[in-house]
């Protein structure tokens, strides 16, 4: 077998890619496959299927696969006028493959509306909603490429609200679960249009990868049989096989270096022993996620770039969008056993595109039927009492009886919706708090736009309407609240044609630095309706094409 290539830091490779997740993994494969010499710097470890377990304590409580709140603490405030307080504000996958390893694998395309909503609905007070510089049609071939190359299970044409697609899914949907059947029947009673959820999980085996074995440990866990279509299980292996791509784990990049001409010359990182190295490169592509990418740009100040790299607009880190969505739990008479199988088997998009004139707010969303709570999680965490009804005693005979009765009989309905881009919602450098390496910590500033909260109330009412149409014995919903915790890190280095109002152009090139490119959740101009990972990977496939074309023309 071919040994993966190792470069010296002094080798000036064609591209350094920072981050190996949904975007970085794809770019690594595409660029190395196109003949370029690539080094991927990943801050987390290089784990494989053999390292993944069902150990809830290690994974959920000890952050085995994610950013660690002690090593990389964060702060939070609602508005820029507030003093930020130490608070765990975000979670992301910190390993080769990034969040694509531990995500739930919901894999929705954005719809046409997501790219042109501003033109359709006009300006929104207190938000800076703008159109993308590209349309759904521009991205469609790359959605298809991502679905086929990474492996997505789904049923084309099952939803009347689906945007046009050039090809069906490469494999059939995963089996429906009891929760999905309950959801489907109730939704149809109401005249809605439920359909099999597209999931980045294999329903059929592929070379080197098993089909899903329905073990039920998807969300927050790494897949032990390679069925989840993470970039780790797919494109990263292809990248290494080209013989031109080195995946270098445990490299915490803290600065992008520039020269007197204002060009990027490489990335400086701490290795495992906290020794600094500089990997030289002709160009740098940052795919570190919507939190760490702006942080890295803001850390890379110099005489030429006093406010941070690529930040002449002053907008690096701004327009953070998290996606929003309430949820509700229900208990049924008979066992669903929804702990088996992938988290979600049925969704609906009837409320994806709403008329602001009718509903009184801008935005939309989708609903899913899911059960993603592993046992300890079900018994201890989340709102009120994890998966148990409010008011359940937290210990003793009744607690045990509730666990015994409800674990197999519970279902959650979750809404996923838009977040509007608000300039003051941001990631910035905390002025006081430092991480374990002595670098300024991330500060999250976030206050949901009033329309996002109205959308939340609207979707909450739809969830309860749906549960009314079931035989649920008991149901309860979470309140619609302002958010202070982020799973989806979107919009913080947005794409646009105007250097004054955006960070990167439609080629993902920063307006300010010719050989610096950004591609991750931060690139998104709007939040979509809640499931951004496919769009992030599709953008990465497209970015790779654009960057390759520029490089071949000698324009980088």
């Amino acid at each position, binding site marked *: 077998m071919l040994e993966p290539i190792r470069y010296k830091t002094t080798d000036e490779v064609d591209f350094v890619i920072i981050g190996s997740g949904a975007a970085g993994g794809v770019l690594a494969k595409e660029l190395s496959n196109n003949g370029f010499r690539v080094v991927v710097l990943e801050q987390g470890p290089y784990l494989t299927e053999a390292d993944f377990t069902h150990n*809830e304590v290690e994974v959920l409580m000890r952050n085995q696969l994610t950013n660690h709140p002690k090593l990389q603490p964060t702060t939070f405030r609602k508005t820029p006028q507030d003093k930020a307080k130490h608070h765990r504000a975000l979670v992301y996958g910190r390993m080769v493959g990034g969040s694509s390893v531990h995500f739930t694998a919901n894999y929705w395309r954005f719809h046409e509306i997501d790219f042109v909503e501003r033109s359709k609905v006009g300006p929104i007070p207190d938000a800076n909603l703008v159109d993308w510089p590209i349309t759904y049609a521009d991205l469609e071939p790359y959605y298809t490429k991502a679905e086929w190359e990474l492996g997505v299970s789904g049923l084309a044409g*099952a939803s009347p609200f689906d945007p046009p697609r050039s090809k069906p899914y490469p494999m059939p949907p995963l089996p429906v679960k*009891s929760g999905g059947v309950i959801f489907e029947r109730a939704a*149809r009673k109401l005249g809605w*249009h439920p359909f099999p959820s597209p999931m980045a999980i294999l329903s059929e085996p592929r*070379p080197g990868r098993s089909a899903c*074995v*329905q073990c039920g440990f998807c969300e927050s866990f790494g897949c032990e049989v390679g069925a989840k279509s993470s970039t780790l299980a797919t494109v990263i292996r292809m990248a290494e096989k080209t013989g031109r791509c080195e995946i270098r784990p445990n490299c915490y990049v803290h600065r992008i270096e520039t020269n007197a001409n204002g060009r990027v010359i490489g990335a400086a990182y701490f290795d495992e022993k906290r020794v600094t190295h500089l990997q030289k490169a002709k160009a740098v592509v940052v795919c570190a996620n919507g939190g760490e990418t702006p942080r890295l740009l803001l850390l890379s100040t110099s005489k030429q770039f006093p406010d941070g790299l690529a930040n002449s607009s002053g907008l690096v880190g701004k327009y953070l969008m998290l996606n929003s969505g309430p949820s509700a739990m229900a208990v049924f008479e008979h066992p669903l056993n929804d702990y088996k199988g992938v988290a979600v088997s049925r969704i609906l998009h009837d409320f994806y595109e709403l008329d602001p004139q009718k509903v009184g707010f801008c935005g939309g969303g989708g609903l899913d039927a899911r059960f993603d709570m592993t046992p300890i999680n079900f018994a201890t965490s989340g*709102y009120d009492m994890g998966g148990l009804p409010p008011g359940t005693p937290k210990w003793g005979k009744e607690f045990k009886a509730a666990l015994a009765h409800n674990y197999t009989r519970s279902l959650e309905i979750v809404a996923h919706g838009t977040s509007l881009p608000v300039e003051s919602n941001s990631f910035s450098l905390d002025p006081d708090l430092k991480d374990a390496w002595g670098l300024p910590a991330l500060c999250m500033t976030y206050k949901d736009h009033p329309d996002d909260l109205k959308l939340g109330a609207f979707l909450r009412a739809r969830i309860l309407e749906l549960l009314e149409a079931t035989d649920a014995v008991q149901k309860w919903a979470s309140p619609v609240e302002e958010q202070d915790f982020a799973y989806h890190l979107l919009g913080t280095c947005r794409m646009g044609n105007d250097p004054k109002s955006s960070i990167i152009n439609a080629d993902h090139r920063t307006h300010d630095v010719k050989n610096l490119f950004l591609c991750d959740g931060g690139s998104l101009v709007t939040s979509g309706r809640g499931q951004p990972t496919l769009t992030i990977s599709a953008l990465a496939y497209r970015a790779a094409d654009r960057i390759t074309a520029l490089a071949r023309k000698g324009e980088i």
Partner: protein
Amino acid sequence: MNESVSRRRFLSRGAAGLSAVWASAHWPALLAAATHARHAAQAATPAKFEFFTPEEAREIDDITSRIIPSDDTPGAHEAGVVYFIDRGLTTFAVTDQKTYRQGLPELQARVAEMFPRVSKFSALTPDQQDQVLHSFDDSGQQGQRQGRLRSRPGAGSFFETVRQHTVMGFLIDPDFGGNHDGVGWKVIGREREHMFQAPFGYYDKSYPGWESAVKEAEKK
């Protein structure tokens, strides 16, 4: 169910339906995982305690038994939760050592205060034990919510810490040093397998297969 049997069945069934390519590519990794799991399971019931004295272990065992009591089904005691906590305090929960070191004397003081003739928590009747624990329990205030997921153990009071550790030790995957013999999963109805097949539950048993709403309307 015996741990190694279920693991082995997972391995063989997992590989059976798959391509030879998959099996050969993954066999070393799967063997490594199985070995790892077996070691962990063997360590689930150590002969002696590493952190607690036998007397302390007795007290903790009794507390966990009130948090998840043994009734007509097994509780924390049968799940060996005290062993899980003991091992945890020298591994993943080292930072909670102080909470236990300070909490146990506090517990004893509270027992002496409420039941002057008794010196140990474990010498009380179950009802008396519940009274003592209720006096410690500040869990009326719900823990801080962080998204829809994840608890943040370790910061709370002694009782809250023991409570969370007990739930973990009762419900963790039995491969990882608690939930002895999978009794916690038996109680909540979770089958101890690494792979499942549809139909999964009551409501999908009679599902006729996907039909689009349009087709259904045409039939009518």
